[in-house]
């Protein structure tokens, strides 16, 4: 399938039209999505109407920009006016938002066409999309395996050519890890770079919306459209948004790349280690200067995260009470009983686990020992990165210690949490991170290279990723789905 920039070029030359392209995507979805199951809701009618509008603009020689008429998939954690937004949870199964998230307003203004909403781990809690209350999504490269998570539906949709690009959200790796598992590019922007208005909150100090695309340029174009300050999100930052595509193609001569030794641990998949080491050699051959750096708190970041994120989640998810929207359990004889039953029936096991863990960590007598301690560790994680970035421009490491695993393979919650060991520190420090394909295992599963940048320096990440992509063949491979 064409990339986002290829689509734009074909639209402008008249070689392709948005309505035909959108129709083609729906045909592919009809044929292939019963196997992949990336989507929970399709929005065919509104997509075709938007495609027609884009087509008129293009014909009149007046397109809105590089995303006009480009078909996208949106993770079902992002509010879409009039379109059911479920978070893949029973408790929000029938929730229809009365407003659009800021990112949706911006994509609409850019002319993009939403094809549908994608499956995810319930409330973005998970690393495999198996925690969806509806059904698991499959990895397009091997249908017996998971696509990663929590944005597994968005990653799988892009990998399978069921959308030209997608949006996901990343709280501890939920864009980068599925991007790695599915062989796509995924970007978690700096905290505050993209508005969270209309993003259903999981852990508010960590959540960020970001793009998936088949190539780096596509991810840059999507980020361009959604980045920037928003008065409706007081944590969005008023830092100018640079021209992300302008930075592509400039090369990486002299770029200082740090290799964090703690990210090459025992127990990681040897094929991942080999591919990432080879990728670092490629960066060197392109003119980058690599040096070893140390991030000594890495080993503690996961533990701190599993106090901070559940603590914030337990508070954010208190709003699901069966009163204002969402599911309500029948038969509660008073308010307290109705709350307890509604939440017990409406939430799945992982969400309950995290609410319990977070409530425990915040409860009287444990607050300082758990939550307070975790916030201090978070400071140390941040300092590690700050010190490393005094010497280097970006860090390069694996996105995940493993490749896509089989459905049902990780039943122990803690084993699932460990999938995110290399992505979580980036969220704790609020930094931008990017995953892009850097090779395949013998059995044909994609491997992800993670690049980590300084705050608000997505440009450097994108330009390094672009240089790597131009020098390697990995992004051109597509899964053989029929």
């Amino acid at each position: 399938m064409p990339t986002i920039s290829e689509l734009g070029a074909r639209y402008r030359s008249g070689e392709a039209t948005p309505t035909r392209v959108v129709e083609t995507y729906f045909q592919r979805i009809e044929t292939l999505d019963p196997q992949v199951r990336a989507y929970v809701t399709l929005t065919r009618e509104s997509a075709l109407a938007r495609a027609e509008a884009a087509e008129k603009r293009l014909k009149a020689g007046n397109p809105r920009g590089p995303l006009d008429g480009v078909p996208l998939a949106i993770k079902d954690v992002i509010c879409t006016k009039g379109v059911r937004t479920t978070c893949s949870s029973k408790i929000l199964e029938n929730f229809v938002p009365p407003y659009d998230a800021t990112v949706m307003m911006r994509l609409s203004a850019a002319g993009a066409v939403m094809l549908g909403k994608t499956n995810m781990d319930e409330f973005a809690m998970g690393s495999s999309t198996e925690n969806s209350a509806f059904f698991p999504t499959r990895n397009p490269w091997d249908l017996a395996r998971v696509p990663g998570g929590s944005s597994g539906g968005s990653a799988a949709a892009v990998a399978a050519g069921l959308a030209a690009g997608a949006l996901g959200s990343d709280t501890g790796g939920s864009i980068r890890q599925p991007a790695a598992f599915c062989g796509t590019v995924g970007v978690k922007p700096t905290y505050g770079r993209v508005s969270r208005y209309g993003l259903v909150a999981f852990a508010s100090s960590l959540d960020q919306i970001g793009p998936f695309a088949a190539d780096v340029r596509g991810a840059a174009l999507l980020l361009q459209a959604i980045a920037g300050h928003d008065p409706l999100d007081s944590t969005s930052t008023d830092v100018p948004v640079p021209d992300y595509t302008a930075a592509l193609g400039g090369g990486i001569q002299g770029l200082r790349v740090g290799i964090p030794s703690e990210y090459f641990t025992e127990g990681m998949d040897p094929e991942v280690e080999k591919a990432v080491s080879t990728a670092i050699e490629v960066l060197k051959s392109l003119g980058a200067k690599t040096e070893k750096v140390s991030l000594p708190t890495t080993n503690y970041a996961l533990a701190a995260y599993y106090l901070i994120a559940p603590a914030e989640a337990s508070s954010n998810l208190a709003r699901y009470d069966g009163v204002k929207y969402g599911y309500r359990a029948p038969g509660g004889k008073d308010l307290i009983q109705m709350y307890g039953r509604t939440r017990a029936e409406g939430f799945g096991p992982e969400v309950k686990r995290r609410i319990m863990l977070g409530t425990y960590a915040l409860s009287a007598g444990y607050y300082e020992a758990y939550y307070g301690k975790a916030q201090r560790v978070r400071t140390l994680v941040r300092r590690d990165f700050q010190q490393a970035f005094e010497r280097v421009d970006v860090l390069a490491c694996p996105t995940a210690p493993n490749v896509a695993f089989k459905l049902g393979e990780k039943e122990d919650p803690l084993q699932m949490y460990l999938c995110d060991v290399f992505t979580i520190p980036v969220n704790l420090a609020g930094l931008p991170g990017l995953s892009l394909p850097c090779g395949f295992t013998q059995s044909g599963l994609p491997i992800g290279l993670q690049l980590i940048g300084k705050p608000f320096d997505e440009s450097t990440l994108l330009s390094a990723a672009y240089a790597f992509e131009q020098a390697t063949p990995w992004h051109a491979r597509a899964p053989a789905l029929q």
Partner: protein
Amino acid sequence: MAQAKITQAEVEHVARLARLDLSEPEKERMRSQLDAILTYIDKLRQLNTEGVEATPHAIPMVNVMREDEVRPCLPAGEMLANAPEREGDFFRVPKIIEE
């Protein structure tokens, strides 16, 4: 055997705080899973954080203020459209006050 990090009674207490009516089998499963997670989290104790300030937000932030003025908001009908139960322009809930 090492002492449990979290007891059944604590699980029940926390579930009450979180408004989650867990079933009996759920409670025991939850206890053992939380126990394993808390045991893992215990590694934080190895780290000396004395004198280290807490980080609630990774990117430095200040309070954002604006004038307290009336602005347009969504109509009541749209806000109520998702209510599981409503009566007129109100959300309907089970009885709160004893008669």
